[in-house]
């Protein structure tokens, strides 16, 4: 089975048993792999009534046909589970060496169910699959866990959980090999509830065959010529995503240019397998506060105050804050959202010292780090914050709940008010099972680009002429229609095992995907068929959540988006992409109508219509 290892590993933690099943070639063909096959497997593996933290929930790990090859940036791993923050079934994707190592041991997917009686970790090495005691690892942070397991099993790749996961914290996150972030919505909490401290894939000896080696290397060589001649690549490799944003940050009034020397001096580029861009990094603080220490950074934004809990003028403090979050296994986005709400409620007197155990809730550096620690361990007030944007607010009463900034119980990534209601902001609202902005497009969609750039990108990504004429006018575009296309394109990345980060995404196109897919699997298909499979994957993920009771009422923008954001003396209302018009509640409902029309979903219920499911060969998955 070219491009696939042809096996799925099933692990029952309750019984301590493992077994393998053949990967059905038809399932692989129609759902591609990764996210897509995960979603199909989840239909059978996650009973609708299973609680996120119950033994019945499953953790489904998936690689794609590109994983383990030389396709540039083909290291994306997908993990699907029912998430504690939303109660929906969602998929997280992250980089690192895991997908390469898992395939080298002969598996495309792993399905983990049950609950171990005591802490264990799962080790996968060819046919040697073991559940090993993890009592000595329990309580250790994500970095310590990876270090300890590397000493036992190198060469290997590790998905660990930190104390936050162990304590079933909803605002948790994990980091494959310390650097590949994934788990938004509380995947680590699901692992923690299962007493599963880590999954280790050891480099095995199973060969990954592809259909046409020469064709693959020729296509990769062609792309690599473009990659190597990209004028910003040397700057990116030297400075990472910081180098690409520092001018923009300075223009916004944040003095980050002064960081450049120290940033570059302590930074080492970090690449996932097959990646020529190495825009992740390891930072080694050798002097100053918090030195000596080492921290992995997936991007620069975590170190920047725009996404931070508290303004930072000190490089080492910024790096240390990210390291503390990552080590404990706390999700920066969800935690920051909860913190913002708590500070606001505290300021309004709705949250009092009686509820916080006498603590003042503010954004002082030490206070924030203390709250991170308390949240990870569910200590004191941290037990409330652990439950996420909606869960925490609910525990504080109706007034707090009214002010919660959430989509399906999860934090939004993008607030459209300082920017606009672009496709990435809109995608967050309609994402099945959780919030997710990345499927709504790539970073350049956020910055008021001219319409011809959108059309050019739509053409590169295989959008049909009919869809282009429906989506774009000479002067503007329909965000819901663009979102639908961006989502189908995005589901191809995660199903094929391809990284979606901006600086590798920019080199990929539908033509390249078809060439890589044909060379690897041997199956020749056209753009319309590949996009149709992306759409099928999206609808499979949707049906999983329709079955759980998610409907139109859950595709709701946070209430506070309809109030202007106050920035100093300025008031910023939510505007359309070209900032011509304020988006009202009525506009938002119209956008939802249009999105459902573009998708072929019922406008009242938000569920895929029977004729669409039939057209996508998904009629076996009706609700």
């Amino acid at each position: 089975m070219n491009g696939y290892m042809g096996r799925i590993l099933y692990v029952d933690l309750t019984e301590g048993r493992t077994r393998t099943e053949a990967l059905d070639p038809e399932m692989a063909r129609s759902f591609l792999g990764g996210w897509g096959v995960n979603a199909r497997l989840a239909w059978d593996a996650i009973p609708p009534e299973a609680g996120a933290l119950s033994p019945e929930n499953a953790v489904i790990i998936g690689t794609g046909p590109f994983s383990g090859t030389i396709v540039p940036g083909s290291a994306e791993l997908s993990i699907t589970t029912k998430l504690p923050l939303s109660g929906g079934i969602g998929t997280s994707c992250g980089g690192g060496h895991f997908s390469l190592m898992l395939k080298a041991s002969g598996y495309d997917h792993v399905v983990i169910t049950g609950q171990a009686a005591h802490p264990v970790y799962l080790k996968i090495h060819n046919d040697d699959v073991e559940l090993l005691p993890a009592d000595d690892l329990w309580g250790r942070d994500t970095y310590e866990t990876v270090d300890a397991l590397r000493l036992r099993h190198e060469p290997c790749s590790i998905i660990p959980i930190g104390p936050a996961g162990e304590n079933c914290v909803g605002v948790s996150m994990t980091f494959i090999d310390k650097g590949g972030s994934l788990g938004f919505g509380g995947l680590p909490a699901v692992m923690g509830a299962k007493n599963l401290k880590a999954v280790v894939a050891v480099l095995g000896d199973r060969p990954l065959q592809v259909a046409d080696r020469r064709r693959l290397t020729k296509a990769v060589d062609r792309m690599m010529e473009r990659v190597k001649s990209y004028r910003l690549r040397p700057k990116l490799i030297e400075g990472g995503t910081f180098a690409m944003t520092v001018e923009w940050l300075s223009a916004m009034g944040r003095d980050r240019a002064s960081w450049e020397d120290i940033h570059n001096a302590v930074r080492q580029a970090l690449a996932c397998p097959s990646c020529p861009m190495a825009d992740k990094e390891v930072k080694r603080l050798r002097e100053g506060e918090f030195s000596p220490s080492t921290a992995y950074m997936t991007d620069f934004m975590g170190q920047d105050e725009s996404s931070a809990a508290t303004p930072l003028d000190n490089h080492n403090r910024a790096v240390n804050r990210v390291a503390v979050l990552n080590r404990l296994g706390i999700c920066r986005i969800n935690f920051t959202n909860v913190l913002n709400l708590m500070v606001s409620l505290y300021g309004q007197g709705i949250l009092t010292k009686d509820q916080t155990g006498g603590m003042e809730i503010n954004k002082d550096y030490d206070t924030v780090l203390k709250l991170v620690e308390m949240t990870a361990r569910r200590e004191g007030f941290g037990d409330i914050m652990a439950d996420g944007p909606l869960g925490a607010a609910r525990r504080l009463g109706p007034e707090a709940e009214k002010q919660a900034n959430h989509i399906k119980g999860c934090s939004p990534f993008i607030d459209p008010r300082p920017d606009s209601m672009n496709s990435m902001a809109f995608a967050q609202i309609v994402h099945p099972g959780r919030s997710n902005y990345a499927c709504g497009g790539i970073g350049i969609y956020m910055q008021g680009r001219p319409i011809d750039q959108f059309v050019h990108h739509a053409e590169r990504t295989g959008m049909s002429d009919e869809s282009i004429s429906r989506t774009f006018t000479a002067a503007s575009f329909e965000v819901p229609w663009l979102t639908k296309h961006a989502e189908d394109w995005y589901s191809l990345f995660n199903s094929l095992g391809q990284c979606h980060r901006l600086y590798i995404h920019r080199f990929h196109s539908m033509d390249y995907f078809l060439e890589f897919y044909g060379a690897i699997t041997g199956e020749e298909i056209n753009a319309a068929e590949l996009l149709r499979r992306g759409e099928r994957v999206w609808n499979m993920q949707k049906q999983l959540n329709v079955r759980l009771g998610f409907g139109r009422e859950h595709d709701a923008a946070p209430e506070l988006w309809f109030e202007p954001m106050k920035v100093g003396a300025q008031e910023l209302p939510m505007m359309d992409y070209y900032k011509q018009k304020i988006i009202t509640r009525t506009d938002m409902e119209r956008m939802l109508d249009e999105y459902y029309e573009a998708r072929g979903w019922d406008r009242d219920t938000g569920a895929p219509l029977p004729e669409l499911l039939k057209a996508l060969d998904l009629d076996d998955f009706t609700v």
Partner: protein
Amino acid sequence: MDQKKKGQPIEIFTERCAGCLICELRCSLRFEKAFNPSKARIRVLRLVGADTEYSVAFEADCDNCGICARHCPYEALIQAKK
């Protein structure tokens, strides 16, 4: 016995290695007609206790074909010119 060498020696600059393993993947595809880093004639291994410091070494059956150096995107492997 060492493989007969086809090409010039390959110099290793480990400090430039970003850990992408493209060298191992290309090498295994050439020799084994399939992808698997464990089948490569070049080995990139993380140093014990290190995060991103690697040892890079060639197996005895490496024939200096240079495919690893030609495709290393970080110039961590450079083959001497004839």
